[in-house]
């Protein structure tokens, strides 16, 4: 996975959670970062905007770590999910 992608994910999480990006590692779990389910959907929202992608509900709910998020985004970008239908 490109380092740049994971760094962008970390930046988004840091900005959304108002925490220092240095405290977030690629293998940090949401639990370690004290990210609950509501924070999780806010992060997904921010990631959709950052990468201009549409993350399906089921995928959004299964995220448990920074790496989960980055891997999911990589797949979506590869499959060319395109902009979210809602992102108008």
């Amino acid at each position, binding site marked *: 996975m490109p380092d740049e992608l994971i760094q962008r994910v970390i930046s988004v999480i840091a900005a959304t959670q108002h925490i220092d990006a240095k405290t977030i590692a690629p293998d940090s779990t949401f639990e370690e970062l004290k990210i*609950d*389910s*509501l924070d999780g*959907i806010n992060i*997904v*929202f921010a990631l959709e905007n950052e990468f201009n992608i*549409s993350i399906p*509900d089921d995928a*959004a*709910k299964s995220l448990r770590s920074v790496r989960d998020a980055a891997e999911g985004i990589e797949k979506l970008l590869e499959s060319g999910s395109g902009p979210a*239908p*809602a992102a*108008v």
Partner: protein
Amino acid sequence: MSPLGHTTGEFWKSVSEGRSGIGPLERVDRSLLRFQNGAEVRGYDPLRYFEPRDVNLLDLFAQFGTVAAREAIADSGVAWTGDLRERTAIITGSCTGGQSSEDEQFLELYRNRNPRINPFTIPRIMGNAAASRISMEHGITGPVYNVSTACSSSNHAIGQAFWMVRSGASELAITGGAEAIFSLGFLKAWEAMRVVSPDTCRPFSKDRRGLILGEGAAMLVLEPLDAAVARGATIYGEITGFGMSSDAHHITQPSPEGAARAMRAALADARIGAGEVDYINAHGTGTAANDCTETAAIRCVFGAHAGNLAVSSTKSMHGHALGAAGAMEAVATVLALRHELLPPTANYTTPDPECDLDVIPNEPRKAAAEYALSNSFAFGGLNAVLVFHKAGRNGN
């Protein structure tokens, strides 16, 4: 006024047969939505119920509430006097008030740069619009207000009205809830919460994928049992207890302890033991979090008796009408006791070990239940539970 029909008779017919009113949304542009289905009130023509001027003044939610109150008041056969009008309360529940009107008018301003906002926007969007309209139509001059506690709004409203009548503070109360939520902005906000099902509402089923939004209104007329008997009124059922609690836990995640405390408080208020309850109309939204949390709460309150309880979620049929949900479910619960027919949980496919209650899957059940609970648990951790008893205790 519901996705299952415009009258109590139509609503009960669908609920008691397990027929769902969930379908493709017709009032909004679905191309901008990830989910496509909802439980809309269908075939509604405002001019069938209101003069054109009043249609301009009333958001759909207030229209729904007004129409439901007309049916309830007419059916109650109450004979109004000036004194009774002063001693009658109206307490409604609505979570969002006239947000569709707000959406429509602000869109004009923000997108179309139209600097003129409809002068009726404020009276249309206020949460008490339905309560106020009902008071004006029927000349009711006692306490009138609206409660807004998200998904518990109408259970809180009905509970307050019940306590006011029981305490003698009011002689009569008109109470329930009204909601009309199908505006694109509001639906997009729900979509972003990621709790709305992409297909249908399957409460307590392993493959449940979320709630289905609904709308409508239901109203009840409450009075002391003796007064109802004395005037020969049709008594549909009794409210015998109300309990509420706050989770003080999380803004959206439910807590079994909070829900359990509200159920216990309601049982204590009704002065009955847990073992006397036969049926629970569950909050049962069909979300991953609610249904297993509610199951845990029920098990916690009822212990071994939980295995004897029949529990169903009628949201599987009328959807989740937010601030009107408790009122619709109160009607479903009262009529279930009256007709000795428990409504099912529709759309059920697969047992979930975390929701291991008897949820009356798909088919209604003949059962003479005496006491029933109706649960509402709101975002914000606000829980409100009503206890109903079948009419006819003490030979009445």
